């Protein structure tokens, strides 16, 4: 019972914050709004910790706290309850969401204090947290879908927060609709699962998940998981539905940190991990996931190389990192995927907040070509940013190193992995190191290219404190899940992470696992190669972008077509617009014009014209001349009499 209350408080506290701020949305007092919102999330955070502690106290196999509130939809065999569950997976997500969320709320107080819509902003943010909590806590796919769409809605509202800018409003709409495409597939996936297994509850589904692998592409499990994965590509910005995420940077920067880096975009990964037995049973789907993940990781990284907007660089980096997570779950390394989800949440939130701090200092300037040398002005931001940078490029013993390395290794060694997947992953890592270093170099290092009128200044404590906390987490969080090989090397550090998740992760079938054997030395070698290449690329980028800028310019000049291709993001948006959206709109107009106006209505009008013209014809008989009328009478008489005579 007290669990139930705890979960209720956890859920309702952000909702309450949303309502409080929502009803006084006109207020411009950022202190009250920010305090209410931050407190609300902090309360949730505290609840999350309490729940986590309770979970720890339970034996490993039965670590599950459920709270059943009411029956939501009951019809036929469908029983969906407003029930929530905290287990190994969702408790981690809870801590990330509420923890990082609270920090970002705190950061927002400083960041948004000058904005007129600050109260509205905080209410949206709280509402987002509420929906995100429903997403991770829901005990069935439908309850998850509630949060799934809810966070999409919040994302829509927050991307279009500065709605008077048409482009930003359009970006919000784009995000929502792209997500909807995924959601439609998600719905189909749910239906297939429900009709096959008769339930949508995660635990029941996982228990029912077949243990034999499904070979067919059109099998129910494969199809269902593929559909769910398409849903995940929408939410988690994977090929082909990633296009919304870079545009989503139109929203306030803390939003980008919270929604578009740390929490919402990882929902797809979370969903797959939640249903991991189902996905394990569908090797074809897993293959697709791994390929899409790897391809996204590389492609987004290549685009990231040429971006000049600080947030766009981070956005593509997010897409790329999410690609890693999918790569991980695609090869069956669910734990590694989850781990990267967490570390990424820390360091990417850190970097986004850092960029927010920079943008704040630069008075809304986001172009890194107009920055440089900010190290002097923003020491705290710079320092914490370095921590995030080291984490993301996989510098040894930073958090990103552990998670990324584990993913790379698994993509190679897992029975569902492949050397090419490793190559793609490593390539992504190299590119990541390059563009992140470029970002650092152009923003913080080298000579200042800052406009004379702008005087950068360090941010207030509300903004720096979250940076510092996240910086610390980015450094140390990797140690809770030290990969096997490194643990050996460092003296048998237990992999707490794997132990924690083990009960809820279904391992790949034994036969498959036994079919591949890898040695520790292979792992060291691959690790060495990838880290070495990444470090080389980072150093190269450092040199190019601080000392020898002409190299970059010359390269861009000599590889003009490729540069243009990357600069225009492979023209994906253009292709979508040219091939789908514009023709659709045009054809809709034709459809309306031809079918509604020219076929259906014309038929109606022809029918009515026949009646009208017939009436007009008969009307001439009715000319008002009474003598003519009398004639008709006599004519009628003649006809009748003739009939009588003829008979």
């Amino acid at each position, binding site marked *: 019972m007290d669990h139930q209350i705890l979960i209720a408080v956890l859920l309702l506290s952000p909702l309450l914050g949303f309502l409080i701020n929502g009803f006084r949305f006109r207020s411009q007092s950022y202190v009250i709004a920010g305090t209410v919102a931050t407190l609300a999330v902090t309360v949730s955070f505290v609840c999350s910790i309490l729940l986590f502690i309770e979970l720890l106290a339970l034996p490993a196999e039965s670590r599950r706290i459920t709270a059943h509130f009411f029956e939501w939809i009951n019809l036929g065999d469908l029983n969906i309850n407003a029930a929530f569950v905290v287990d190994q997976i969702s408790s981690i997500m809870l801590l990330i969401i509420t923890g990082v969320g609270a920090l970002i709320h705190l950061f927002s107080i400083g960041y948004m204090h000058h904005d007129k819509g600050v109260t509205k902003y905080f209410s949206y943010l709280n509402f987002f947290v509420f929906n995100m909590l429903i997403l991770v806590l829901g005990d069935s796919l439908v309850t998850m879908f509630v949060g799934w769409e809810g966070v999409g809605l919040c994302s829509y509202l927050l991307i279009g927060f500065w709605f008077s800018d048409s482009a930003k409003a359009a970006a919000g709409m784009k995000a929502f609709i792209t997500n909807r495409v995924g959601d439609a597939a998600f719905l189909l996936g749910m239906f297939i699962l429900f009709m096959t297994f008769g339930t949508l509850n995660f635990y029941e589904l996982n228990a029912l998940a077949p243990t034999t692998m499904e070979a067919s592409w059109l099998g129910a499990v494969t199809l269902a998981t593929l559909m769910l994965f398409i849903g995940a590509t929408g939410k988690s910005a994977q090929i082909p539905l990633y296009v919304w995420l870079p545009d989503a940077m139109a929203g306030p920067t803390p939003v980008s940190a919270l929604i578009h880096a740390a929490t919402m975009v990882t929902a797809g990964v979370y969903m797959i991990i939640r249903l991991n037995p189902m996905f394990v049973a569908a090797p074809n789907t897993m293959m697709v996931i791994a390929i899409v993940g790897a391809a996204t990781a590389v492609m987004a990284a290549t685009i990231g190389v040429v971006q000049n907007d600080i947030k766009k660089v981070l956005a593509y980096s997010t897409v790329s990192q999410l690609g890693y997570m999918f790569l991980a779950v695609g090869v069956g390394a669910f734990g590694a995927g989850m781990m990267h989800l967490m570390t990424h949440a820390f360091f990417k939130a850190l970097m986004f907040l850092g960029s927010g701090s920079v943008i704040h200092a630069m008075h809304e300037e986001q172009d890194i070509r107009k920055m440089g040398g900010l190290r002097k002005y923003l020491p705290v931001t710079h320092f914490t940013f370095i921590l995030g940078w080291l984490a993301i490029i996989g510098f040894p013993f930073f958090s990103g190193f552990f998670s990324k390395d584990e993913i790379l290794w698994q993509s190679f060694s897992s029975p569902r992995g492949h050397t090419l997947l490793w190559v793609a992953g490593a390539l992504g890592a190299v590119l990541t190191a390059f563009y992140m270093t470029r970002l650092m170099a152009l923003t913080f290092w080298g000579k200042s290219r800052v406009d004379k009128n702008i005087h950068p200044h360090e941010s207030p404590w509300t903004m720096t404190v979250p940076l510092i906390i996240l910086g610390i987490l980015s450094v140390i969080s990797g140690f809770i899940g030290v990969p096997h090989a490194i643990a050996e090397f460092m003296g048998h550090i237990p992999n707490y992470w794997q132990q924690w998740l083990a009960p809820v992760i279904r391992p790949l079938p034994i036969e498959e696992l036994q079919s591949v054997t890898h040695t520790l030395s292979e792992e060291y070698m691959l690790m060495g190669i990838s880290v070495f290449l990444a470090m080389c690329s980072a150093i190269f980028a450092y040199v190019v972008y601080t000392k020898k800028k002409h190299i970059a310019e010359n390269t861009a000049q000599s590889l003009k077509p490729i540069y243009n291709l990357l600069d225009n993001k492979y023209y994906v948006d253009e292709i979508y617009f040219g091939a789908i959206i514009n023709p659709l709109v045009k054809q809709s107009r034709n459809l309306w014009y031809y079918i509604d106006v020219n076929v259906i209505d014309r038929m109606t009008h022809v029918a009515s014209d026949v009646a009208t013209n017939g009436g007009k014809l008969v009307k001439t008989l*009715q*000319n*008002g*001349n*009474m*003598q003519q009328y*009398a*004639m008709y009478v006599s004519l009628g008489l003649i006809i009748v009499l003739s009939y009588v005579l003829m008979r």
Partner: protein
Amino acid sequence: MLETSMFSEIGLNHYLVLSALLFTIGMAGILLRRNLIVVLMSIELMLNAVNISFVAFSKYNMNSEGQVMVFFVMTIAAAEAAVGLAIIVSIFKRFKEVNIRFFEHLKG
């Protein structure tokens, strides 16, 4: 024989034919004349024609109902003439003419 009997023996048919002719004459008046009063007179003509056949039937069927009907028809005819003339008077007051074309407002 037939010739003489047709002329000398006056029967019901004679009256009916007379009535029919008178009726068609009245009808021709209604169809052709433009003066409303004449049209009204033509109507009287038709009513009279009908009356002839009523009375004829009455006689040859030994039944007084026909005569009663004539009685009613006369009354109605008188009434109709009165109303018709009143309307004509109204029309005349306005247009100074009693042409039937003033009744063409029934045009559809």
